[in-house]
């Protein structure tokens, strides 16, 4: 096993990897931009190295600085997390060239799966079904129009180098085509440094279902069943569950086998995910492979009992997949709600800011992977995730009940806006509760403008009294809540000041 690992990431996934390392007795090195000097992942690590100014391209995406940080701290391996360098074959190669271990697939597999157009071709050749669309990349709006005339609206325009829901636009009407092509090409260039894009048929009522795979260097290729990721806004996942209520045992078996075949086709190593689109008739098509750990990996961990990040590290150190395919079962049900600093009432736009009060859910069946702490900032430089709230239950109904309960305990206040109310709405939505939804779900069902918060007279009286007291500054925290105990809270800082004055 490694003695020390550098984590080339930030936020909750950096903390997640640090936790896995600590459980394995491995020391951790955090890297941080100037905006993250006191971020949670720095607090949790054993070592920390500054790698540059806040913009990611100058810090978290600066290859020489990251490699140098690993060298200076004696790290033997680098875990990329998700995002940033996680699917960058050049970085993976640079790590290997520096004599260190990249915790993830071999650079070649990243490269082949990273070009979405090449990946489509490769998968088709391996007998994996793919979505109808352009055989290769397109370059002009005219080419797109020509293809669309053949396959018809709706279509998805996707960056060839994209992934993770970024650099893509769905177009239903001719009038939106220009703006979508412009956006994707521009986003692809600025985000991935590669302006090429391609076009796929947008399936009528698709489910976004993915299969987790895990492979080692000893010829073991396994899958850990599916995740249902159809609850999406802005083409990005926001709630996931495992198992999928839409997947039948027969479909599960078929998708698992195809996923393993896809992983074998690129001689895959470590954890990865095959994303499929599944239509209303349960036909499934390869969409892309994510050659990294994914945001939503915890639901698979809760249902299978396997720690995927620890498995990644052990496999990178030469170990084996820690189970046989035949031993693995789906036990119970898990749901993940991604808690973001974003505003669901205004198109889910990011709404970062400072966190003044943070109250996190706990108790049975609740896992919360958090990347922030009270008093910290959700920075506009990075992904506005606050935490991933995951619940487990013996069945879907218990998992939903626990999520509803956990959401009721979760409170965030400050200059940011959160999507907690969206999740609360979802957990009470009849179609969600029935498990009858596809990727169109949020667009069809979520109408925040028609929803009133609603408060009865007693609640109103309580909140107006609190608002009144707060606006008069009557109660300045921190104060003792146990006012009746007769013990007055005294600031530790005041005490410390007094001690010091005695000393001088």
């Amino acid at each position, binding site marked *: 096993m490694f003695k020390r690992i550098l984590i080339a990431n930030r936020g909750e996934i950096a903390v997640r990897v640090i936790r896995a390392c600590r459980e394995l007795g491995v020391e951790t090195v955090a890297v941080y931009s100037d905006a993250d000097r006191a971020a949670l992942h720095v607090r949790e690590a054993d070592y920390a190295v500054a790698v540059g100014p806040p913009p990611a391209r100058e810090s978290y995406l600066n290859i020489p600085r990251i490699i140098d940080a690993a060298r200076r701290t004696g790290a033997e391996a680098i875990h990329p997390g998700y995002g940033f360098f996680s699917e960058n074959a050049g970085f993976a190669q640079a790590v290997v060239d520096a004599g260190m271990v990249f915790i993830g697939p071999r650079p070649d597999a990243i490269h082949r799966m990273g070009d979405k157009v090449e990946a489509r071709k490769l998968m088709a050749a391996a007998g994996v079904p793919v979505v109808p669309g352009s055989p290769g990349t397109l370059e002009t709006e005219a080419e797109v129009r020509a293809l669309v005339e053949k396959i018809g609206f709706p279509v998805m325009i996707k960056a060839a180098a994209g992934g993770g829901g*970024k650099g893509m636009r769905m177009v239903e009407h001719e009038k939106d085509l220009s*703006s979508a092509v412009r*956006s994707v090409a*521009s*986003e692809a260039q*600025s*985000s991935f440094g590669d302006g090429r894009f391609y076009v796929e048929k947008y399936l009528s009522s698709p489910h976004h279902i993915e299969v987790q795979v895990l492979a080692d260097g000893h010829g073991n290729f396994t899958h850990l069943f599916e995740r249902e990721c159809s609850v999406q806004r*802005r083409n990005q996942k926001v709630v996931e569950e495992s198992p999928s209520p839409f997947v039948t045992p027969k479909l599960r078996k078929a998708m698992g086998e195809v996923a393993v075949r896809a992983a074998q086709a690129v001689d895959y190593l470590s954890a990865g995910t095959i994303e499929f689109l599944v239509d209303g008739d349960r036909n499934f098509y390869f969409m892309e492979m994510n050659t990294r750990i994914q945001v939503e990996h915890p639901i698979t961990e809760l249902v299978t009992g396997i720690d995927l990040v620890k498995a990644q590290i052990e496999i990178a150190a030469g170990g084996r997949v820690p189970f046989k395919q035949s031993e693995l079962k789906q036990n119970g049900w898990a749901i993940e709600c991604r808690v973001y600093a974003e*505003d669901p009432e*205004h*198109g889910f*736009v*990011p*709404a*970062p*800011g400072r966190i*003044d*009060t*943070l*109250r996190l859910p706990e108790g049975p069946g609740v896992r919360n992977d958090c990347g922030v702490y*009270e008093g910290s900032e959700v920075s*506009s430089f*990075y*992904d*506005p995730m606050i935490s991933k709230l995951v619940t487990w239950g013996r069945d879907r109904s218990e998992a939903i009940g626990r999520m509803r309960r956990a959401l*009721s*305990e979760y*409170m*965030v*206040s*400050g*200059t940011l806006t959160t999507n907690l*109310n969206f999740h*609360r709405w979802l957990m009470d939505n009849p179609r969600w509760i029935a498990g009858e939804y596809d990727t169109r779900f949020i667009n069809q069902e979520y109408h925040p403008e028609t929803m*009133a*918060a609603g*408060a009865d*007279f*007693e*609640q*109103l*009286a*309580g*909140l*107006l*009294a*609190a*608002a*009144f*007291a*707060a*606006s008069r500054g*009557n*109660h*300045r*925290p*921190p*104060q003792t*809540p146990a*006012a009746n105990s007769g013990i007055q809270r005294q600031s530790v800082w005041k005490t410390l000041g007094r001690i010091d004055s005695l000393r001088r």
Partner: protein
Amino acid sequence: MRYQAIVDGAGHELEIEEIGSNSYRVKLDGRTFDVDLRPTHGSSFLALVGNRTFDFSISTEGDDLLMISRRGVNRVTLMDRTRRRLAASGERAVAGRVELKAMMPGRVVNVLVKAGQEVAADQGIVVVEAMKMENELKTPKAGKVVEIKVSVGQAVEKGEILAVIE
């Protein structure tokens, strides 16, 4: 103390009297409640109204108070009489005028129109990048661009006015 309280857009007549160190008498639209209030953690309060408990975290947005509880978020504006008059006379004068505001902090990466230009409803006006996503902000209604307040490369704050269309 008498107030006009606006909670989630609805107006309420409010009278509040501090009757003890943690107690308030609240007269709300003619009904009276005694509220026992304790600060707990950070900017949070625990309110007891009769036997019901309400746990609020409080934050501010402009002049509004956001009351965050397990039941959701309520937006509260407290106004005394002077203030209420001001609000009543000052608003709605800008009907027909559209202020395009930044929904999030970010950077302007493109300005698609010019001042003076006629625009159609749904036409893209400004592109703002935040969190690596580019967002094309569109005008909800047709009209004439009165003013473009930002330029390419400029950082913008949440709520900042980017353009005005009339």
